[in-house]
């Protein structure tokens, strides 16, 4: 359904996207994950034909975005970040307008508009001015316009950003409903989001893909490493630096409560060396615990600002 190969995008001398390749099969729901500024939005804008690429190939349904942009745009439903809508129209006016612009007419248009009003639970707000809607409703109107023409590919940029927890749960239900019928790509920097709605995840950092797979696969890949919490008795001194220098330990940080947090092998093979370091400083372990790895840890591990090996699994 979607094929992206060796995609590059430069803004002047800044390389926002550096050789991304991935593909999405029909019916799939793909989560596009990465910290802010990783190149998610840029990639999506290129796929929907809003922005040109510096080099590479993007094909939607076998059609090149660069050469047959209009046909590609017919097959796509797109919701940009923050759901931009026309504020001075009512919900129903807006959806009718968008349906028309997407080439629907007559009874088919009426039927589709009614359908998306149902799917996105907009019944109560159909005559409300868009400018009077809450953020959650705005997002739903945005989703409704993205699927009103039953597109082959739905692209949603941060569909839950800025919503409160209740609204997020509601939008998630709508997303699941959409995912049942259409091929979907949605971007997020919130992991629980992606875990809840996507069957496959692409993680992107500084313009490159750093991991790809199902949420379970990604977690499994990191199962041999866990996040540990360490509390000590005695003076810590420069312990943080000493820990960071230890082989096998990564992502060391000192928590506000004075405990240390770090990633380390799950088998505890680092423990004797740790005890040695503490003993040398006249301190001792009060508590050492470890968490099951979550997608959160995988994400942090892969997209941390320290240089990571890039582009491997793509």
């Amino acid at each position, binding site marked *: 359904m979607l094929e992206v190969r060796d995609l590059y995008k430069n803004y002047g001398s800044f390389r926002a996207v550096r050789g991304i390749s991935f593909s999405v099969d029909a019916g799939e729901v793909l989560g596009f994950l990465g910290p802010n500024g990783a190149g998610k939005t840029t990639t999506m804008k290129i796929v929907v*034909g809003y922005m*040109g690429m510096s080099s590479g190939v993007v094909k939607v349904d076998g059609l090149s975005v660069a050469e047959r942009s209009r046909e590609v745009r017919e097959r796509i439903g*797109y919701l940009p970040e923050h759901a931009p809508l026309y504020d001075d129209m009512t919900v129903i006016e807006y959806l009718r307008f968008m349906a028309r612009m997407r080439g629907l007419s007559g009874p088919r248009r009426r039927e589709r508009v009614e359908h998306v009003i149902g799917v996105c639970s907009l019944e109560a707000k159909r005559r409300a001015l868009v400018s009077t809607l809450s953020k959650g409703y705005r997002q739903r109107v945005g989703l409704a316009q993205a699927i009103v023409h039953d597109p082959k590919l739905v692209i949603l940029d941060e569909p839950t950003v800025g919503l409160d927890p209740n609204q997020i749960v509601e939008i998630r239900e709508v997303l699941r409903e959409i995912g049942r019928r259409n091929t979907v790509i949605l971007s997020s920097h919130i992991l629980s989001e992606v875990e809840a709605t996507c069957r496959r995840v692409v993680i992107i950092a500084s313009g490159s893909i750093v991991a790809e797979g199902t949420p379970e696969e990604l977690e499994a890949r990191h199962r041999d490493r866990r996040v540990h919490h360490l509390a000590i008795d005695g003076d810590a001194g420069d312990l943080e630096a000493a820990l960071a220098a230890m082989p096998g330990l990564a992502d060391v940080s000192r928590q506000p409560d004075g405990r240390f947090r770090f990633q380390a092998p799950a088998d505890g093979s680092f423990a004797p060396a740790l005890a040695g370091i503490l003993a040398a400083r006249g301190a001792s372990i009060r508590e050492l615990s470890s968490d099951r790895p979550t997608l959160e840890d995988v994400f942090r591990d892969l997209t941390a600002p320290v240089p990571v090996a890039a582009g491997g699994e793509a």
Partner: protein
Amino acid sequence: MSRVIAIWGKELRSYFNSPIAYAFMILFLSYAAAKFFVWSSAGPYGEQRFNFWVRGEASLADYFSVFPVALAVLVPALCMRLWPEEYKSGTVEVLMTLPVRSWEVVCGKFLAMLSILVATFLLSLSVPWAVSRFSVEELDMGPIVGGYVAALFMGAAYCSVGLLSSCFTREQVVAFLGALFICVPLAVAGTPDIDLFTPTWLSPIAKFIGFSVRFESIGKGVLDLRDLFYFASFTALFVFLNVTVVEYRRLR
């Protein structure tokens, strides 16, 4: 074509859902009517310009003479939100990723502006009606029809400038000033008052491009096709430039 109509309808709706269209109409109509019915003043050569009641002629030439400058100021205000609003709210991103061609978007917006002008001119028909009612002479319809045809062509030219100016900026005020900067000189270039201060080498050019000069000659009932052709090609050029800019932005 159905997409042009959809955009046309959307723009008109948002103009009439906001006070902008009404403000434009009220300002234009009341200013033009006041100038015609109330104002009497001294001209630059010391001659008196009298209002309709003092002169008592059944002629609308003085009414139409207000149009070039009034439209040059008000049309930029009408057009200034066309693109900046799309840029600021981000709706341009949705709009340009619809299966719509650039010219369809530009023409839809342009036609919406033209429709508001037509509506305004229809309302302004109340003035010829009043003149025919209050003057003893028979009203000559020729110059009135000519005046409205000319006003429509000239208004379209102003709209095309306003539309193009608005597509370069996210700020409505900048769009307004940009359009004003082009429209007002165009409106007054070549008129007798301004010609006094125009260098001799520039004078023929000013008379060629000036809107008022052409507008008034049509308004006198001299329907010269060259004048209409000038306005039409001017409009086409600016609309085409707008389409080009929009199309160019797509590729970046």
